[in-house]
């Protein structure tokens, strides 16, 4: 009897204390398990078929340069999927990738018609309306927010579509900078890549595919590029620089590979 009374009192006191203490924060929600998208594309930087390691002065190009790659960044849009029967499906995805920081996935999570798919098209860059639209209207995590991608030329410009930067050996100097910034309507790049490893989508089916980004080929196929001879910098912003960018722009057709 006494025990019951005491425990009753304790309960009451506990109740009173907790009743006053309304300040307790609700438990933080555990992050939900990541939802698997319908299609996940993972872009992997490669050099001569092997994973490219950033910050290493060890990659020798066909043109004879030794490279240390610091950044490979790109803005992608106008994605389309290609069915094995040739039909295409437009997607409304934008992506910003920064391969050195492992930001390398494009997750497509929209209704996709059922079918067997063999290929992907996308544009490296943005069409004119978006490229020259108000860059600050995008939310803080949107791929096109300039604070997210740091690829917008603030003053009257549009976005940089593709960045490939680093150092190369020049007369014993390992800090010589190379820097290629592809931009402007002229250098909007359409990429189409196909694979024999077809994949089915639609009706809740999910697929994941790797896309290699071959930096060796960027500097060699079809045109061999030499940083020392051809020049190590282009921002697509003068006729001289355009001569260099034209070559690398052409090589971009062979840079991406769907596995």
């Amino acid at each position, binding site marked *: 009897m006494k025990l019951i*009374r005491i425990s009753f*009192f304790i309960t*009451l*006191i506990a109740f*009173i204390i907790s*009743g*006053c*203490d*309304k*300040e307790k*924060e609700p438990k933080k929600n555990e992050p939900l398990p990541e939802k698997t998208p319908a299609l996940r594309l993972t872009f992997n930087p490669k050099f001569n078929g092997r994973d490219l390691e950033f*910050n290493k002065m060890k990659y020798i190009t066909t043109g004879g340069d030794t490279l240390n790659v*610091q*950044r490979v960044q790109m803005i992608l849009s106008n994605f389309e999927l290609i069915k094995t029967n040739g039909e295409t499906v437009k997607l409304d995805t934008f992506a910003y990738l920064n391969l050195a920081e492992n930001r390398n996935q494009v997750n497509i999570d929209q209704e996709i018609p059922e079918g067997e798919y063999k290929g992907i098209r996308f544009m490296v860059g943005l069409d004119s309306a978006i490229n020259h639209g*108000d*860059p*600050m*209207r*995008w*939310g*803080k995590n949107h791929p096109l927010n*300039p*604070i997210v991608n*740091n690829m*917008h*030329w*603030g*003053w009257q410009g549009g976005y940089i579509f593709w960045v490939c*930067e*680093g*150092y190369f050996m020049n007369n014993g*100097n390992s*800090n010589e*900078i*190379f*820097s290629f910034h592809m931009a402007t309507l002229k250098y909007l790049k359409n990429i189409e890549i196909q694979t024999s490893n077809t994949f089915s989508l639609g009706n809740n089916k999910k697929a994941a595919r790797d896309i290699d980004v071959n930096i060796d080929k960027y500097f060699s196929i079809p045109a061999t590029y030499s940083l020392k001879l051809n020049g190590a*910098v282009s*921002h697509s*912003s*003068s006729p*001289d*620089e355009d001569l260099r960018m034209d070559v690398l722009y052409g090589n971009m057709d062979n840079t991406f590979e769907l596995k």
Partner: protein
Amino acid sequence: MVGKSNTIGFIVLLFISIYGCQRDNSADYVFAPTPYQFPERKNGYPIYEPNTDNPLTEEGIALGRYLFYDPILSGDSTQRCADCHKQENAFADPKRFSIGISGAQGRRNGMALFNLMWHPEFFWDGRASTLREQVVVPIEDPKEMNSSMSEVLKKLNRSTFYRRLFYNAFGKHIITQDLYAKAMEQFLFTLISFNSEYDKFFRGEPTSFSEAAFRGLTLFNKEPQLGGADCFHCHGNIHLGSFKMVNNGLDETHNSDLGYAETTGKDYDQGKFKVVSLRNIALTAPYMHDGRFATLEEVIDFYAQGVHANSPNIDPQMDQIPKGLNLTTQQKSDLIEFLKSFTDSEFVNNPNFSNPFD
């Protein structure tokens, strides 16, 4: 007998509990916060995105402002945030190194505070990823306010002034670290500066933006091989700073301050510091993380001829700058004229941001 005293005990307890819960609900203890109206957003300027768990209210902002100007946050109650972050200097510290309450000298220059809603990381080395994380650090830093959060919370909870203000802002009687941080965040988020002469020029409004500033703008946004000064790769967006962690070649070796590497532990991040905004730059001397340059002239001379090309991890976006910029005296002064056009005098004189105890 026992039963009766029990009943009385019950009644007393109940009374205490009701009184205890309600004693604060006097006239001052109202919780009816007024939502804050941000200034109108103009094209080309960032959209407002306060955190959804901390909507800005007039009451929350007023509270944060008191805290920012109150030495109650420091160990011996002598130092305020505002002692190192002065409004007339766009909330930067005009002293090269700030002196904490214990007399200890910091190793970095106090940073300017504005437009913080859009920063992805805080501090010169990016070691805080949210403002709410950040605002606890100076309190507990032995070289700054040299206190502890639990000490500060005790003091705040003892203060009837703050208990009332916290109740008005958040409807809570007990002041917690979370509420402190939310109040501070609210005030800091209202420090918005987008009204310099440069902005007026950018928006096509009447402005005193000069010819010389316009020539400076052209240099700022052009690459060296085209005769420019190439500042825009890092300071080119609407914030005039990318907020990324970058090495701009200040030093040949990184020994005294490893910068971002102190946050990430990675060798290749040594010497990288936050690309800060150049807004209000004419008011925020001295310059760089260690305040090594006293004037904008020194900064321009550094970029023109003083960059260490062999600095480990120098950013590739420094591009041709390390080879030297061929700027004439006239061009240097044009660039400085342009930098001066970033001053937002309305911001540094805004009465909503000044000391509320005055």
